């Protein structure tokens, strides 16, 4: 092989059109579509007394106004995506609320008009009468349960889960030192710069629904819409075009608009588009992070942890559409890179009158890391031992892998760290950080973490060599800037021995690849990247099989180099991949760039039918990769920060990151 693309600094192929303003984001698509506006609750908790849309319906430019009463599925709860036995009181919202609203921003009515301006004008004419109800707004208040978010959920507790490793009570009682700590982590919004957006078109002639969605999971949206509208999946196409950042909340489905926009398009027989504005994003798109942790830690005189108990409340928001993945991840990741021989963790996922929660950038992990690192700081402070030294004494050592933490992971498996060298992360970070700068009020921040990535269940890929010799490849998961089109081209190019420029990648388009899960949890390179590798390997094997007959060689003696299949050691004995692609399809007529090269070999027919048992036409293959479990990344961040003692303004003087990311496919896009 003359060139190895894996690991090479290949410039991104995505950049040119994005830089020229020729990107294709959902709101850029489909001029002439009807546009929409939601009427959303201004109250965090209220009973709806009445909704009057009559004036809005007759407003200029309005095509339709929907309330729950107008929808055949108006009384149906949206799906609960990831059920769990501990989620005993899961609740999801409806597309449009008709009785009670449980967070400010919950959708009540949906206006479709000739333009966004007309839709917004009409939305202001919708009259909703509310009776405000008592509001439950923090996890602590929710846990006190003086008021309920859902009348039928006592204590506001959606889920509770208790896990224990070792013998916590015995270890805690005998611990030389004990300390109780309380940590609070605030909520936040993801706020990708492109908000959410959906465009839909129904073709009555073809009985086909086409949806463009700024989503992290077009394959799941397709599956869900097919079920909801009673269509075969083959009649639903979902495309995530360019997506302007996701960061988690775009993996959620369904948001009400993802159902209502396609529904309106089918009802009205015209394309319909909805584009979120920033205010809606802050209220109606899932958020994350709100947790309160009560920790007790037992440790010895050297600062080694012997027991850790964490009882935390997770602010779930008003509904649990995404199950309890977030607190499960937090519970699993509190110990992080440190040995915690006796660990008890309990969480309660509580309802609040706030926007629902689902994964956002880290998905439960930053809170866990914060809890552990602050606990270690407290131990260091208590004993008067250096904070770095306390960490060093507690770190899992390189010879301890695989390391079983003993708690449940988000995929249903147990947490087992596969590899790592945590002490080296710390050493390297401190070396890079260097000596502490002079001056008053300068402190060091230090955190070491592990991160479960590459989570399953699977992804797939289709790879095809065209008769031109060019290669096209597709996978189901979309890109939000991760350079899929560049890095997967590198993976495929290596397997097929072609130039990376000759490989064109499509991602996130169910027309090209209908199966898969989504882009989230740092999983794309591991899952879809391996699927690309597998599918391209299958194509390479097929190319050798086909070429072997014509080159009178064994497939094992062939190699794919420079766009050709050739005999190892005899580079002149070979044929172009393009010609193999022509030969792979035994029709009477041959088309394409490889035709001439192929015909000289056509005089050597095989006995038997042109396609023999199990053979398929085309130089193509579909492959899947399903990981046995997560692969565990790790890293260390360290910083020197100056604090202004009067204003508390923080100034970051130096910040370094060491991250063990495995084998790098392309250093330019790290």
């Amino acid at each position, binding site marked *: 092989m003359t060139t190895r693309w894996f690991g*090479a*600094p*290949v*410039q*991104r192929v*995505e*950049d*040119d059109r*994005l*830089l*020229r*303003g*020729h*990107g294709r*984001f959902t*709101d*850029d698509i489909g*001029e002439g579509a009807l546009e929409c506006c939601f009427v959303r609750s201004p109250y965090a908790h209220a009973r709806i007394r009445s909704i009057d849309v009559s004036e809005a319906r007759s407003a200029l430019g309005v095509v339709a106004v929907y309330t729950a009463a107008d929808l055949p599925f108006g009384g149906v709860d949206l799906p609960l995506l990831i059920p769990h036995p501990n989620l005993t009181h899961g609740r999801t919202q409806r597309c449009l609320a008709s009785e009670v609203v449980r967070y400010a921003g919950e959708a009540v009515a949906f206006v479709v008009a000739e333009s*966004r*301006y007309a839709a917004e004008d009409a939305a202001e004419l919708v009259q909703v009468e509310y009776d405000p109800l008592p509001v439950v707004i923090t996890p602590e208040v929710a846990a006190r349960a003086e008021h309920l978010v859902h009348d039928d959920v006592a204590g506001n507790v959606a889920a509770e889960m208790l896990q224990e490793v070792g013998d916590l009570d015995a270890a805690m009682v005998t611990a030389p030192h004990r300390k109780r700590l309380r940590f609070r982590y605030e909520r936040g919004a993801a*706020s*990708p*710069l*492109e*908000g959410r957006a959906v465009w839909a078109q129904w073709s009555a002639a073809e009985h086909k629904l086409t949806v463009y969605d700024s989503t992290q999971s077009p394959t799941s949206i397709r599956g869900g819409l097919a079920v909801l509208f009673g269509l075969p999946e083959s009649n639903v196409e979902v495309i995530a075009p*360019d*997506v*302007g*950042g996701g*960061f988690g909340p775009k993996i959620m489905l369904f948001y009400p608009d993802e159902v209502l926009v396609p529904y309106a398009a089918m009802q009205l027989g015209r394309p319909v588009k909805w584009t979120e*504005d*920033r205010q809606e994003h802050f209220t109606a798109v899932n958020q994350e992070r709100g947790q309160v942790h009560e920790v007790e830690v037992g440790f010895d005189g050297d600062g080694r942890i012997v027991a850790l108990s964490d009882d935390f409340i997770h602010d779930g928001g008003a509904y649990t559409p995404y199950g309890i993945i977030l607190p499960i991840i937090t519970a699993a990741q509190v110990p992080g890179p440190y040995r915690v021989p006796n660990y008890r963790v309990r969480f309660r996922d509580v309802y609040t009158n706030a926007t629902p929660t689902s994964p956002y950038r880290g998905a439960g992990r930053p809170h866990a890391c914060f809890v552990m690192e602050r606990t270690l700081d407290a131990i260091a402070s208590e004993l008067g031992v250096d904070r770095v030294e306390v960490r060093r004494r507690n770190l899992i050592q390189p010879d301890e892998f695989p390391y079983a933490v003993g708690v449940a992971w988000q995929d249903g498996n147990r947490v087992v760290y596969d590899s790592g060298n945590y002490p080296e992360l710390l050493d390297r970070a401190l070396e890079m950080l260097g000596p502490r700068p002079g001056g008053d009020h300068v402190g060091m921040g230090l955190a070491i973490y592990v991160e479960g990535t590459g989570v399953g269940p699977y992804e797939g890929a289709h790879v095809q060599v065209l008769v031109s010799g060019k290669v096209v490849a597709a996978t189901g998961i979309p*890109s*939000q*800037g*991760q*350079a899929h089109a560049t890095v997967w081209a590198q993976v495929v190019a290596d397997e097929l021995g072609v130039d990376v420029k000759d490989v064109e990648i499509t991602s996130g388009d169910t027309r090209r690849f209908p199966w898969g899960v989504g882009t989230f949890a740092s999983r794309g390179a591991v899952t879809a990247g391996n699927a690309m590798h597998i599918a391209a390997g299958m194509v390479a094997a097929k190319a050798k099989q086909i070429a072997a007959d014509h080159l009178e060689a064994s497939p094992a003696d062939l190699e794919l180099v420079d766009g050709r299949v050739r005999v190892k050691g005899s580079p002149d004995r070979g044929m172009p991949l393009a010609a193999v692609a022509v030969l792979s399809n035994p029709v009477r007529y041959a088309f394409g760039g490889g035709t001439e090269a192929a015909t000289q070999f056509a005089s050597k027919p095989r006995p038997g039918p042109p396609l023999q048992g199990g053979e398929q036409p085309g130089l193509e293959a579909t492959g899947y990769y399903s990981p046995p479990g997560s692969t565990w990344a790790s890293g260390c961040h360290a910083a020197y920060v100056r604090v202004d003692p009067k204003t508390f303004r923080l100034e970051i003087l130096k910040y370094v990151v060491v991250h063990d990311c495995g084998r790098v496919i392309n250093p*330019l*896009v790290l």
Partner: protein
Amino acid sequence: MKVNGVEHSPPADPRRLLSDHLRHDLGLTGTHVGCEHGVCGCCTVLLDGAPVRSCLMLAVQAEGHEVKTVEGLARDGSPLHPVQQAFHECHALQCGFCTPGFVMSVVGLLAQHPHPSPQEVDEGIAGNLCRCTGYASIRRAVSRAAELSSPLVGKSGPQGRDGAR
């Protein structure tokens, strides 16, 4: 108003935002809308050469002025504008949604300060947000753009990213 050198009539609706007019009336969808209240900078265009937020202007206010959008920087098929080229070389974009706004801000910055100091670079891009958090690369790209825009030293490799293929 003139947009990318071509004369257009303003929209009939006086309340139409310049950003909506560019995107939905003229089809120039390279100008993005991220917040609609002047915070994120995605909608930045040049008005008579100076960066402005097209979401904070009515289209009719641009009458008699010259608007340049990201599509007006380099003709299709021709090489990228030096600022676009610098963003490419320095990996200063990921999802690409904030990119046109950044590029237009930097074009405006370099017109005013052809050799900006680090502080001028920070001030020049302070009005643009990148949620993929690629600011370090974007800073590098601004310096590289200044190099590429200078006729004397345009040909050396990108800073800190040498060896790219």
